[in-house]
C-alpha cells in the first residue's frame, strides 16, 4: 500500500476540515523553529577555537580539543552524576507525588475546598527562582536564618553554615523543587482524571468496590498512558537541569559544587568567566548534553514501542 499518497490526501482534507485547529499550531511551530532548530547549526562552535568578533567561518577548527578538556576536567564526573541523579529523583519521586496529589485532589468532593488546595499548592510555581533563593536564604542564613535560630537549638545542635556545607543540599534542592513544581505538574493528571468515564466508577460501586480499589483498578490504569508519555518526555531531558534551581537557590556558592554543580550551571560558569576558551568548553558541554538527550529520547521511545506501541511518540 502506498502510504505516502494516502497521508497526503488525508492531510489535505484534515487541514481543510480543521483550519482553525491547525492554525493554533503555528505559533508553537514558529517558536520551536526559531529557538530549537535554527540555533542547531551553532554546535559547530564546539569543534572550533572560539575567537571573539569573528564569524563562525573564520574561526579555526580544533577538532576534539574542547571535548578533551571537558572529559579530563575533575568537575565533569561531578556534574554528570549530579545532573542524572537529581533528574532521576525528580522523575520517579515526582511521578508518585504528582499522581498521588492529583488523585487526592480529585477525591475531594467539596469543589471549593479542592480548588483552594489546588491554588495554594500551585502558587509557588509562579515565583521566580531569584525570589525563591531569598526565601531559602531566610531559612538558611547563618546568623538570622530560621533554621539556625529556631530549629537547630531545639535539637541542641550548633548553627550550621549551610552555604559552605554541601552534604544537606541534595535534600534542600529536592524539597525546593517539589515545593515549587508539584502543583503545576499534577494539573495534567488532574485533567486526565476528570476525563475518565464516570460510568466506570458507577459500575465499580455497584460491584461493591471501595475507594482504594477504585483508585488502583480504574484511576491508575487509566492514567497509565499519560504517565508513560510524561516519563519519556522527562527522561529525554535527563541531561539538562533546571538552571534557576541550581544556580539561584545555592547562591552559586562554590563550596556547594560537589553536590550542586549540574551541566547547565557548569556551562554558564564557563561562558561567563573563561573568556574565549570558556566558550569553546561551554559549547562542548552543551553539545555533549544535546547528543546524550537525543540518544535518550530515541532509546526510551524504542523501549516503549516494544512494550506498548500505542503509547510511543513516534
Amino acid at each position, binding site marked *: 500500500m502506498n502510504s505516502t499518497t494516502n497521508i497526503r490526501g488525508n492531510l489535505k482534507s484534515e487541514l481543510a476540515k480543521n483550519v482553525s485547529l491547525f492554525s493554533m499550531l503555528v505559533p508553537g511551530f514558529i517558536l520551536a523553529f526559531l529557538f530549537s532548530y535554527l*540555533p542547531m547549526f551553532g554546535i559547530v562552535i564546539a569543534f572550533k577555537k572560539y575567537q571573539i568578533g569573528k564569524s563562525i567561518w573564520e574561526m579555526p577548527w580544533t577538532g576534539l580539543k574542547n571535548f578533551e578538556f571537558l572529559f579530563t576536567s575533575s568537575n565533569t564526573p561531578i556534574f554528570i552524576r549530579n545532573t542524572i541523579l537529581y533528574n532521576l529523583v525528580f522523575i520517579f519521586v515526582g511521578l508518585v507525588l504528582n499522581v498521588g496529589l492529583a488523585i487526592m485532589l480529585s477525591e475531594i468532593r467539596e469543589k471549593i475546598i479542592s480548588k483552594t488546595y489546588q491554588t495554594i499548592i500551585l502558587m509557588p510555581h509562579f515565583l521566580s527562582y531569584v525570589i525563591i533563593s531569598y526565601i531559602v536564604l531566610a531559612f538558611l542564613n547563618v546568623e538570622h536564618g530560621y533554621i539556625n535560630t529556631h530549629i537547630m537549638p531545639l535539637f541542641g545542635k550548633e548553627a550550621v553554615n549551610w552555604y559552605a556545607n554541601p552534604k544537606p543540599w541534595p535534600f534542600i534542592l529536592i524539597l525546593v523543587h517539589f515545593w515549587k513544581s508539584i502543583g503545576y505538574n499534577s494539573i495534567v493528571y488532574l485533567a486526565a482524571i476528570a476525563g475518565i468515564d464516570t460510568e466506570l466508577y458507577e459500575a465499580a460501586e455497584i460491584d461493591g468496590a471501595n475507594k482504594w480499589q477504585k483508585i488502583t483498578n480504574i484511576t491508575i490504569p487509566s492514567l497509565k498512558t499519560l504517565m508513560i508519555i510524561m516519563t519519556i518526555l522527562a527522561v529525554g531531558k535527563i541531561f539538562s537541569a533546571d538552571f534557576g534551581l541550581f544556580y539561584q537557590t545555592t547562591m552559586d556558592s562554590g563550596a556547594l559544587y560537589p553536590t550542586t554543580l549540574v551541566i547547565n550551571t557548569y556551562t554558564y560558569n564557563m561562558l561567563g*568567566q573563561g573568556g574565549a576558551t570558556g566558550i569553546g568548553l561551554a559549547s562542548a558541554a552543551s553539545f555533549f548534553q544535546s547528543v546524550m538527550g537525543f540518544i535518550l529520547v530515541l532509546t526510551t521511545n524504542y523501549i516503549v514501542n516494544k512494550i506498548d506501541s500505542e503509547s510511543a511518540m513516534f
Partner: protein
Amino acid sequence: MKLKALLKNVMCVGAVCALVLSFTGCKNKEAMIKGEELGKVPVEPYEINWYIQSPSQKDVSLVEEKVNEYLKDKINATLKINILESSQYEKKMGTMIAAGEAFDIAFTCSWLLNYATYANDGAFFDLTDYTDTYLKDAIQLFDEDYLKSAYIDGRLYALPTLKEIASQKGWVYRKDIAEKYNLNMADYKNFEELEPVLKMIKEKEPSIQYPIDWTEDRTAFNLNDFYSPVADVAIFFENGKARDKVENIIESDIMKKSAAISRRFYLEGLVNPDVLTSTNITQRFQEGKTFVYMENLKPGKAEETYRGKNIPVAQVGITPIYKTDGLGSMNAVSSTSKNPYRAMRFLNLLYTDPVLSNLIVYGVEGVHYTKIDENRVDVPENTGYSLANIQWMFGNVFNNYLAKSEDPEKHKLLKEFNEAAMPTPVRDLTITIPQSLDVQKMAVTTVKKQYRKQLVLGAVDPEQVIDQYISELKAAGIDELIAECQRQYDEWKAKQ
C-alpha cells in the same frame, strides 16, 4: 500512525530550513568606518554605550540628558551610561563580549573582567595607533611608566584611570571607638597583633556586632604583598624583596598561616559568620555594626567611601607603599563598537574636560549637589545620582571636585603619596600565560572558585579542606603553570 509520519516530515523540513537559514545568517558584518576628521564636530550623531559597575542610580537619564547637551557641540555624540551591579558585571559583560554584542566602552581591570584575558581574546579595540591622534590630549597627562604598564606585548587596549599610582594596605576603623579606648591603630601591623583588641571590643562594645569584617580580598592573607600572574600562583614579597620561587599560593606557608587566623577569628565570633553570602562590608560599617576592616588605601580613601554618611571614620596604612600598575582600573573601547573613533574622542574628553567629568561623577548642579566654592561641592545624602564613590573607575580624578567632607588638600596628598611610593620588587615583570596552557589556566581558575573563598574567609576548617584543594589544583595542572611562570621569572631576573 498518520500523525507520527506527519511529525517526522515536519521535523525533517524544519531541520533543512534551519540549516539553510543559519548559513545565510553567517554573512559578514557591515563595513567598518575608516576614521573621523579631528578638530571637527562630526555631522552624524552617535550613541556611545558605556558600561560601568556601581550600585544603580535613579537619575541616570537626567544626567545623560545634560551630558548629551554638552557633547553635542563637541563631538556630536550621545552617551548611554549602563550601570551594572558589581555582582553581575563580570558575567554580564563576559557573556555580552562572548556573544559579540555591540557596545562602545567598558570598565575593565585586573580584578574584574580581566583586562589581559579579554584583550588577548580580541574583545577590545587596539588603541595603540591612535595615542597621538584621537587620544592625544589624554595620553599627555600620563606618567610614562604608569601608561606602559597597561601595554600588552607593545599594544594598548585600554586607558588606565588617572589617579593615585600607588597602594598601601591598612585599617579603616571607627575613629570614636579607637579614641575611647586610646588605641593607636598604626601599632597593629597584622591580624594577630590586632586580635586582643578585637576581643576587648567585642566584650566592651555591645553595639559592635563583630569587631572585624572582611571579604574574600580583605582577609589576613591579603595583607601580604605579592604578584599573582594566574589564579592561585604567586611570587610573594618579603621585607621589600621578592621570593625566588614562584609558589602555589595554597601550598605556601603564608596561606597556611592566614587560613588558620581566619578560621580562629571565625570560630571566636570576631567576624560575621555570614561572610559567604553577605559581602557588603561598607554597609555594615556605616550601620555601626563593625569596628575595623583591612583595605587598600590611598589618602582620603575612608572619607571617599563614607562621604555624606554620618559615621566617624579614620584610616591608617600599615604596609610599605608600593607603586601600582595601571591595571587596577581602566576603560576599554570594545572591538564591537560601531564607531571606535567617536568612543576614543569621548574618552579623550573624559580625561581632559573637568565639566564633563564632574557632570558624570556628581550629576547635575543644583539637583544632585551644590557648590561651596571653586573646587568643593556639597553632596546631600541619598541624591538620585552620585558616582563620587567610584570616581576612581574612570577618567582623571584630579579634575573632579572635592566633597565637603574630604580633605581640601586631597589632590596634593595624592600626588605626594604617588611620589612616596617605591616600585615593587618585580617592577616591570609581566608574566603572560601562553595559549598552550589555556586549559590548565581555566581548570585552575575553576578549582579556585570552588575552594578559595570559604578557605580565606574562615568558613571551613582549613585542616580538612586544604589538602583536597591542593590535590585538585595539581590535577588541574597548576604545576605546569608554575613551571612556565618560573621560567619567565628567571629570564626576567637574568636581565636585571
